[in-house]
């Protein structure tokens, strides 16, 4: 047993302020006493049971299955039942430098109805319904089951694992900027059908989601949804898979992201380091060495990039103007370039889509005491992160295609 303080963002819609009129939101602290391995939800329920029955929070299963108790804890969107109160307490102290209460707020990007209860219908569910969230099959099912690749079912199980808790929606930075963004949960739901071999309208779905200005190209690749997701759905990965599938369908990406990505990989493969000058050219006029194809979109894109390039040079992020002349770029020393190419070769051979339901772990693993020092350091960091535990777990298991790189950001 230990004592904790929960600082809860409260809103009682029927309360009146002292001057009359509706009272606004306010903070209230609750002191609770419970085992550190119990959850923040257990703490909230204890406060409700013992102190104030009007404290509103949706909850049901207590075990991260029903998706009811999405909240922000110390600013991080998550499930209250999945966050151990001891860890949340340590995270609060670490963030604030000293004994500070655990801060609990309603989810973001949604209107608040009361206390920690948000209006998911007008936001989350409306967006889910936007992606035609049901199977569009050929209308002619066989007598028995459809025969499909076993891996295809495991693959979409990652998105089926979504419990519609809204944590990713709450954390989504793109949606903060563009409330109409279809968003991580609904787009992950869309992948559930695009990736399902029994759904026959992949192309229609992809065109629809690509042409919507608030669709798949509205994601800024910020990883927040991957961090927030309590079930390892990795919504951003699913959005990227939709983009790749769209590229495969020959859909024109207005943001040029598909070609930009291709330009990056091509240049590194060729030169080992990034040749920024070539990057612009390859992104906007790929395959036309030394000259630009005068497509209006390409020229507009190039011109639009100039201010960014100038800022880059000023701040030292890019090299001098002279070196921006295409073609002048240093080579890697020795056989380094061949090694880079080797990495590409390896990646090409291991092109399977990573999926937490398939990958799991290798059969034989070193015992903890045999671990390399680097691995131990990673373990230590893992346990120190607390709030960001979920993405760490994915990173160590290879559950997410992208979480590995995110780890370097050290956002814990």
């Amino acid at each position, binding site marked *: 047993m230990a004592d904790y303080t929960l600082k809860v963002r409260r809103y009682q819609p029927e309360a009146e302020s002292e001057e009359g009129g509706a009272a606004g939101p306010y903070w209230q602290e609750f002191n609770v006493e419970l085992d550190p391995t119990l959850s923040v939800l257990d703490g909230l329920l204890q406060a409700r049971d013992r102190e104030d029955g009007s404290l509103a929070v949706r909850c*049901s299963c207590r*075990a991260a299955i029903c998706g009811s108790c999405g909240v922000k804890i110390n600013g991080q969107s998550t499930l209250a039942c999945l966050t151990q109160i001891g860890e949340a307490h340590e995270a609060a102290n670490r963030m604030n430098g000293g004994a500070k209460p655990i801060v609990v707020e309603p989810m973001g990007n949604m209107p608040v109805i009361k206390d920690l209860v948000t209006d998911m219908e007008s936001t989350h569910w409306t967006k889910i319904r936007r992606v035609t969230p049901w199977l569009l099959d050929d209308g002619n099912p066989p007598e028995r089951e459809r025969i499909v690749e076993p891996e295809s079912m495991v693959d979409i*199980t990652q998105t089926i694992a979504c419990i519609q808790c809204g944590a990713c929606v709450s954390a989504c930075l793109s949606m903060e900027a563009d409330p109409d963004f279809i968003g991580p949960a609904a787009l992950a739901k869309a992948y559930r059908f695009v990736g399902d071999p029994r759904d026959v309208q992949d192309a229609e779905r992809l065109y629809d989601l690509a042409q919507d200005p608030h669709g798949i190209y509205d994601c800024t690749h910020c990883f927040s949804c991957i961090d927030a997701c309590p079930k390892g759905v990795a919504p951003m990965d699913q959005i990227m898979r939709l983009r790749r599938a769209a590229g495969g369908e020959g859909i024109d990406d207005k943001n040029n992201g598909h070609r930009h990505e291709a330009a990056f990989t091509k240049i590194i493969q060729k030169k080992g380091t990034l040749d920024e000058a070539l990057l612009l050219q390859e992104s906007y006029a790929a395959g036309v060495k030394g000259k630009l194809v005068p497509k209006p979109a390409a020229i507009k894109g190039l011109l639009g990039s100039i201010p960014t390039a100038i800022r880059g040079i000023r701040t030292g992020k890019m090299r001098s103007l002279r070196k921006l002349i295409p073609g002048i770029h240093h080579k890697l020393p020795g056989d380094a370039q061949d090694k880079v190419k080797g990495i590409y070769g390896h990646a090409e051979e291991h092109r399977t889509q990573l999926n937490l339901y398939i990958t799991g772990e290798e059969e034989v693993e070193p015992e903890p005491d045999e671990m390399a020092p680097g691995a131990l350091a990673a373990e230590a960091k893992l346990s120190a992160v607390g709030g960001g535990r979920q993405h760490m777990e994915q990173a160590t298991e290879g559950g997410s295609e992208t979480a590995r790189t995110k780890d370097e950001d050290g956002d814990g």
Partner: protein
Amino acid sequence: MPSHDVLVIGAGLAGQRAALAAAEAGVSVGIVSKVHPVRSHSNAAQGGINAALQEGDSWESHAFDTVKGSDYLGDQDAIEVMCREAPEEIFHLEHLGVPFHRNEEGKLGTRAFGGASQARTYYVADITGQAIMHVLYEQLMKHSDAVDRYEEYFTTNLALNRNGECAGAILRNVRDGSMELFEAKNVILATGGNGQAWQPTTNALICTGDGISMAYRAGAPVMDMEMIQYHPTTLAGKGFLITEGARGEGAHLLNANGERFMERYAPNKMELASRDVVSRAEQTEINEGRGFPDGTVALDITVVPRKRIHEALREIVLVGRDFAGVDITREPIHIKPGNHYTMGGVKTDIHGATSIDGLYAAGEVACVSVHGGNRLGANSLLDTLIFGRRAGEHAAARAKRTDLRPPSKAQFTDEKAALEAIVGRERGSGHRISEIKRELGETMDGHVAVFRDDAGIKQALEVVKRLQEEAESAYIDDRGDVFNQDLLNAIELRFMLDCAECSCVGALHRTESRGAQFRTDFPERNDDEWLKHIELTRGDDGPQIGYSDVTMTQWEPQERTY
């Protein structure tokens, strides 16, 4: 006033399946749920769903396993219906888009489960209930023109008409607190079980026996209420579920001496004996001092290949890590038997019809009875879907040949006044709702659990009766209309107390041991006197006891060993 041919209360698997079936029959359908449908507790069904559809398997074999699992208390006509219709239901779900696990040929693949003579459990990793329920909700969204959804509407009571028929329901819109009378030709209860009357339990906070209590109060008999399943593998303290699929994949149960103790209790089926058998074995080990100091035994999943654990038991890896601090791929996890499932419920026929005209029940709220004294793992999802569909179809057919008979307005007025009275109780005047609920849960888990005896059950019944009185004056803090969860908790407490009382009365009355009911003072099964259901009907001074025969078709009772 909302008006429907068929009004479904509860939107888990049984409710959603019933609504879709009724809509397909072309009648107007409404479905209400006190939580958003995808929050329903069917989510928690991890392991899978049974059906005999492999070559070499037969519905008769599935039915016999179910009859034997029920300790011969299950009604065999209903069990036959469920097992015969199972394969078609699985194909239907597959066609709707459930991503069932496939074998190497791309066909549906199975896993082994307890009490079954063949591997016939179909599954989606260990999120089978969640996957099926989300796919059904996709269908509800698709058919939104045919099914009206009322999400976050709390049903406080059934509405009857002058003839005593069910004619609708009284609901509170959780979001704004408004009370509404819903009119319906038929009501289908699909509100789930009452596990929250026990603490700890694997059941979600919403599993408070709403439908069982409402039907009981409306005059319908409830049946087999003494049959409460304790699941063999739950986390100590928190009560969270570790799927039977873990044992299906090969995990062992070990006592503190490292012995695979099931050898002594079920030498043939070992860990995959029926749940009542395994739970009793564990509790015996614990009671006789061969458990761990925290009152548990161990489940060793490390014998399952790690890749297979990650693919097939992913959720359990997370539960172990997040709620027990254990990496189940590396070390055994401590578990114990815990409250899990309500075999009993509102008595229905094989169409889901109760004894009240216009009132149906399906899923855990109902007692058809396909589970009898003990439910087999992976038969609950099947029960919800088969009898949900049948209730939906039957209610739709009945709607086509009946007229609306408006419910009583006086009852609606009384119900509103009753709720206002709860809100109006003086603060500090009595007990808090949460105190009463805690005492109820601890009492039931203490005395109406794996092992029971006369003195313990009587003590529990006395406590329940006292708590019923205390609940009458328990006060709440929230005076508001919007999301007044405090008020809803007070109503749920009343529901739970009804269910607990019936369970105590049934358990006390059945002086034999059968299925989940093990009386240490009557340790033998007694077919001569007790091969029958106990039915309870609400009377002025508590439940009135009646009996009905077990329906037998082709399986005579035998000695039950695994």
